[in-house]
């Protein structure tokens, strides 16, 4: 039972991190970034390739590399699509995503690359009768630290204030002197950092990485961002958390029928969208009229 709750919390935390990364970028430029999964994948590749240099250096390289790729996406593609609507941006990011997947296939090969990043995370801890996987504890702590850090950054710093301003009304924020390209660049960098954190947790769990490494979690986090509330950063984190926790709980309660977890999850997603098209925490500025 305790393990079930901890799993739900750690899954929720992990998906919350991924969703917040997507939500940050969505907030400032209305881009639902499918290619976030490829940021997670490059993070995982960098961890595996550089782990022999020691964990601290590996973390540094992975985080920097992922952030650089995020900026590169912005400069090469999305910066040129500033005037396009959300549907065009969504399709473009779909294209970037497939482009990078195939690119990884060329560079790293289609087969999984394996390696042990932090073996101590896969162990279990025992408290009397209950055993708890160490990974879930570490994930929860990491998620708390990063979500707390992001909260501090967004609520207490000038750049964070600008991101919030740009998220709620981009044009007005620009008129009031917020430098749009800088804010968007910052959002991409932070979404890259969050992607690297997600990559760290996932790659320690799985022990291997392949070109499609980030697709699954991105689809789910993306859905979390949307049902959480487009344009609201708390909403994104909350939506991601809800999706992750729901998956984990469905997995434990469905028992032998757990293969149908996604069916139930996505039916719930459709229902949430029908009842609240703007998301659970909706932001008035993004409402679209039918």
């Amino acid at each position: 039972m305790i393990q079930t709750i901890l799993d739900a919390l750690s899954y929720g935390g992990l998906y919350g991190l991924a969703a917040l990364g997507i939500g940050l970028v969505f907030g400032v430029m209305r881009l639902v970034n499918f290619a976030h999964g490829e940021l997670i994948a490059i993070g995982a590749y960098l961890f595996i390739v550089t782990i022999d240099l020691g964990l601290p250096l590996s973390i540094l390289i992975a985080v920097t590399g992922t952030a650089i790729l995020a900026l590169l996406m912005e400069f090469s593609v999305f910066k040129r699509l500033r005037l396009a609507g959300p549907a065009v941006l969504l399709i473009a990011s779909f294209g970037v995503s497939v482009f990078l997947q195939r690119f990884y296939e060329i560079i790293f090969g289609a087969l999984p690359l394996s390696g042990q990043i932090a073996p101590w995370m896969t162990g279990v801890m025992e408290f009397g009768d209950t055993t708890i996987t160490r990974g879930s504890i570490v994930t929860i702590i990491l998620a708390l630290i990063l979500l707390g850090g992001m909260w501090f950054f967004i609520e207490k710093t000038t750049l964070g204030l600008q991101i919030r301003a740009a998220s709620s009304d981009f044009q007005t924020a620009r008129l009031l002197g917020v430098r749009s390209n800088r804010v968007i660049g910052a959002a991409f960098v932070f979404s890259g950092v969050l992607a690297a954190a997600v990559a760290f947790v996932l790659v320690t769990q799985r022990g291997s990485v392949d070109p499609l490494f980030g697709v699954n979690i991105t689809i789910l986090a993306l859905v979390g961002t949307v049902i959480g509330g487009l344009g609201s950063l708390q909403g994104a984190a909350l939506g991601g958390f809800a999706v992750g926790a729901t998956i984990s709980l469905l997995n434990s309660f469905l028992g032998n029928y757990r293969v149908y977890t996604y069916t139930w999850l996505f039916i719930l997603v459709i229902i949430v969208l029908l009842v609240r098209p703007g998301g659970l925490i909706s932001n008035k500025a993004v409402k679209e009229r039918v």
Partner: protein
Amino acid sequence: MSDDLLRSSQLPGVTRFQWQQLLGPIVVIVVLSYVISSISITFTFLTEGTLALLVMVLGLQVFIGNSGVLSFGQAAFAMVGGFATGLLTVPVKIKENVLDELWEPLKAINMGIWPSLVIAVAIGAFFAFLTGLFLMRLSGLAAGIATFALLMVADNVFFNWRLIGPGPQVMPQVPKFGFVDESIILAVVVMVVVYLIGISRRGRLLRATREDPLAARALGASVWRLRVLFFTVSGGIAALSGAMYAHHSGAVSARDFYLGFTFTTLAMLVIGGATSMWGAVVGTIAVTAIGQVLLEFESGVTVGGIDITLPNGARGVVIAAALVAILIWRPKGITGGREFALRLPFLNRP
């Protein structure tokens, strides 16, 4: 909010029926199909597969192009169509041997390809109607994500539920089309339907809702009803595409119609130009041609005495890059979203 891909300033006259707009694409497809399939048996196979994809892209066009609502869910109806025709035509003996967990009444059914195609289309359209009743309440990104959720549900169900199919395995021994003619006829029929429904009164009203929902409502258009209607037609066409694919490859499985299929067909539509039937045709031909050339290079080609071998994955890289480049530099697609006209498409830029 300007959405270049889906809103287009069509030239005047496009809403009137013009023979060249309908016959031009048909002639192109029929001639190309016969010429290419006459090269070799491999190319016949390629032509049939491409025609199935073309039907899918036309199905996407009729909904996405006219309504301006993005849908990732049409592949779900292709899945329904492929499975339906598979279950109806695979010989009873094969079903008993390979698909032993199948629901008993389904095991006993067997019919020819043509009646089975009709039923597959009907089932696909029915499911599209049923889901459209709910999903068409949404628009914009919510619609995109909700239709995506639909695809995920369909994939999850078909991949696991052995009562209605092979589960994660492949359904084998689906009877194949005898000749390339069947695929050509079906593709031409769909082109006629898509063009006629596009210029019909309801099609024009739906395009009006795409450009300005409020003004269209003032004209008495129910956005929801129109979208449900076109979503249903689109679902039926997608189901036909799935069924054509099944009869082309002789087998069908859930993962044939998943993210890769969705990406390819959506890329074809956007690259060609989402707002016209001609755009769907051009996009399908262009992407297939690029893909085929690169496939040759991936297996090694000698150009001027130099061996060139591209690594596996180069195809995906180039097609994805082409999609992004089109969105940046020519957001309305190669055709500019216009119907066929007897001029070279790249000469009449606005």
